[in-house]
């Protein structure tokens, strides 16, 4: 069997890749947040470590991955539960556009907090 690179297949493949990546992140996330049980010092120490620019950039990547998975999920719900779509390509690009808007909205403050060395300076930038 040969797969062809049409939109539905690419969307499905990206959905699977992002889903696996998010579940991998989820394992780490639950483990990291579990440090809450070890008290304020232990938890804040881990959080300080994760405030480094490298992890902030990672968070922006994660945001993009989650938003793709969610937007594609909305597309699937439209098609399967929402009575289908007359133009599936157009639907794909509409949900992706919504995802991109949310991505820019969410990534912008993270990017500033990563390189301005703290969230308090961001307000001055965005005011």
């Amino acid at each position, binding site marked *: 069997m040969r797969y062809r690179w049409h939109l539905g297949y690419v969307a499905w493949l990206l959905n699977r890749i992002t889903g696996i990546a998010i579940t991998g992140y989820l394992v780490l996330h639950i483990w990291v947040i579990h440090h809450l049980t070890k008290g304020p010092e232990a938890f804040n120490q881990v959080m300080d470590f994760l405030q480094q620019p490298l992890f902030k950039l990672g968070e922006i990547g994660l945001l993009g991955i989650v938003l793709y998975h969610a937007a594609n999920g909305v597309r699937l*719900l439209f098609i399967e539960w929402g009575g289908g779509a007359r133009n599936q390509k157009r639907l794909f690009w509409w949900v992706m556009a919504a995802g991109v808007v949310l991505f820019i909205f969410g990534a912008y403050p993270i990017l500033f907090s990563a390189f301005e060395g703290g969230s308090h300076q961001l307000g001055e930038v965005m005011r």
Partner: protein
Amino acid sequence: MSTDRGLGSGGLMGWFFQRLTGLLLIPAVLAHVWVTHYVLGDPGFQANEISYQAVAERLSNPFWKLIDLGFLALVLFHGLRGVWNWLDESVHRPWFRIALFSVVVVLGAALAVLGTVTILPFRAS
């Protein structure tokens, strides 16, 4: 394939629950990220720095504990079921399928326990 029965993708019901949990997770994840990572207020829209104090304040409310436990259950079900779907379609040797299925089940149970013991008995210290 008849050999896939029993350990398969769960058929129509499994598909239905994957869509249903996915639908619920869209507002849940957006709210989770918004509440934990962003601050709207003076001065402006900010990316938040996570601290023990901020989390402790939220978890002092039993309502938030319930919300977080429900979120944990939803996300574990959806995530691990998705991973199992992938394995189910890619792995065909029966013993390997059983081994991987066991890993997914054990990992799921471990994460459910780890998440629950983090949220449920939490008291700020």
